[in-house]
């Protein structure tokens, strides 16, 4: 046996356990999902008809799907900015604290530990009970908004709750990166007369670029599939005004017309879009990292 052959054999042996569970529970269902997306299967009938790309053609003119895609894209962009800016600022602010650093870090990260279903319900309580109490009894009329009913405020509510859930996580990643920045570099920067902003953007920022790539990848990937938060907060309503793609797919599959094949086709489209975007993001940002 060649050296290569031996290498491959040992590779296969070591990969086997992981590959078997992965194949059975992830890969095979994925491929059968591709097949289902080309059927007229309605989720109930025992037989399914192969209809080729008909479902995909229908998606092209499905206004609700593209509306939810638009909503999701808006949400992802806002989350990319809001969550990452806040997380990075928090990381910088907390990292430079000496004594209170540990406690701040711990407490800010706490929401990330709790399931978003639970977090969503806690916030639901805030938006439907507590804020109105404050508005009615404490004169804080700024809170007297239809937080779940008005699409614009509902969007804000969703962003707040999602940020609450993930900022702690992103913050920790940024803090870890900040720790890797040698203090003498920043000090030499400030000796050169650079102010805090300048030294951050000239010295610190380039050194934590890699963590930015990671955080943006992570935000993109998970936010595009947002489900839990919206589900426990607005349920996608009023109407479909706060419907994310994942919720649109869920609705297509499990309520109304019950079209499992069509819904699966939608999820394939979502997958393709997310896939392409993240691949582009990673290649572009990795290249930038190496340029530096």
């Amino acid at each position, binding site marked *: 046996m060649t050296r290569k052959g031996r290498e491959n054999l*040992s590779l296969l042996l070591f990969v086997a356990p*992981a*590959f078997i569970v*992965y194949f059975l*529970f992830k890969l095979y*269902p994925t491929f059968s999902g591709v097949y289902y997306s080309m059927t007229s299967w309605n989720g109930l009938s025992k037989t399914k008809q192969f209809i080729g790309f008909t479902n995909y053609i229908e998606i092209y003119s499905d206004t609700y799907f593209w509306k939810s895609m638009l909503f999701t894209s808006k949400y992802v962009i806002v989350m990319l900015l809001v969550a990452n800016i806040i997380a990075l600022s928090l990381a910088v602010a907390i990292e430079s604290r000496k004594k209170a650093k540990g406690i701040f870090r711990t407490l800010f990260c706490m929401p990330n530990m709790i399931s978003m279903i639970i977090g969503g319900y806690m916030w639901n309580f805030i938006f439907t009970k507590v804020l109105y*109490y404050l508005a009615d009894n404490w004169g804080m009329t700024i809170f007297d908004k239809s937080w779940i009913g008005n699409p614009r405020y509902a969007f804000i509510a969703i962003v707040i709750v999602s940020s609450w859930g993930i900022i702690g996580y992103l913050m920790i990643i940024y803090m870890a990166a900040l720790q890797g920045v040698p203090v003498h570099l920043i000090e030499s920067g400030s000796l050169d007369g650079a102010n805090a902003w300048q030294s951050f953007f000239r010295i610190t920022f380039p050194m934590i670029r890699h963590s930015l790539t990671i955080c943006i990848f992570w935000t993109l990937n998970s936010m595009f599939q947002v*489900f839990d938060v919206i589900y426990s907060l607005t349920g996608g309503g009023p109407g479909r005004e706060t419907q994310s793609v994942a919720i649109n797919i869920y609705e297509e*599959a499990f309520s109304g017309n019950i079209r499992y094949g069509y819904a699966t086709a939608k999820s394939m489209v979502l997958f393709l879009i997310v896939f392409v975007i993240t691949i582009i993001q990673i290649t572009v940002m990795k290249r930038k990292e190496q340029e530096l």
Partner: protein
Amino acid sequence: MSKKRRIQNLLVYTALILLLFFWLFPILMALMNSFKSNKELLTNVMALPTTLKLDNYLRTFEKMHYQRSFLNTLLLTTLGVGMMIVFSAMAGWRLCRTKTRLSQIIFALFIFSMLIPFSSIMIPLYKIILVFHIKNSLIGLSFVYAGFGVSMAIFLYHGFIKGIPFELEEAAAMDGCNKITIFYKIILPMLKPVTVAIAISNVLWVWNDFLLPLITLSDNKKYSLLLSTNILFGQYSSDWSAILSALILSAIPVIIFYAVFQRQILKGIGEGAVKG
């Protein structure tokens, strides 16, 4: 310290503390109101509870079958994450060290499905679960979790191992160690930091996962903590005091886990991800 610096410091502290209050507000509100009766809660959500009544907790503790649900979730999480770690460390190591076309293809296959939404494979997955007769089996479900988690774990191990010098393994191989020995004696100990990170993020994920147990565990004796909590939402949908106490009860284990392992958790999130 200059005066300007001190004022700046004070400002940052004030801002941080205000933000922190906002951050913990929902949890504190849930905690505070969970001790009130529903009537008390509806009249004034901002008031401190007049008495520390545990009625809500006792009621929901029993209703949720808390103890049983907790143990179920614990079994599911330990087994699932345990398998995930061993399987992906083995695979990640060989995939990184073998520089063949096959290795690249397998690695790509693992990474490929990382972004696939769960909803699109829900029913095909369910069919497989039935074929293997692992429905209502916590052990079976832990295999499913292992299958779901290996992609990301392999991706992280692969990235981490790239940074480990090859010489050590080579030297061990020269000494006549076989691959399994090298794996357990040399590689696995070196992977500890990334393993901790992977273990922690997956423990939290499996513990907090909702949809998969929902479709696979139908026997209420096998319910996970979140499933048991969810049942209560339907039962007490207008009774916020009961709901809030259930929310707190199901958040407690995670909070304790976090309190105990917070150093490792935070370090793990930072290091594991940054090096990935």
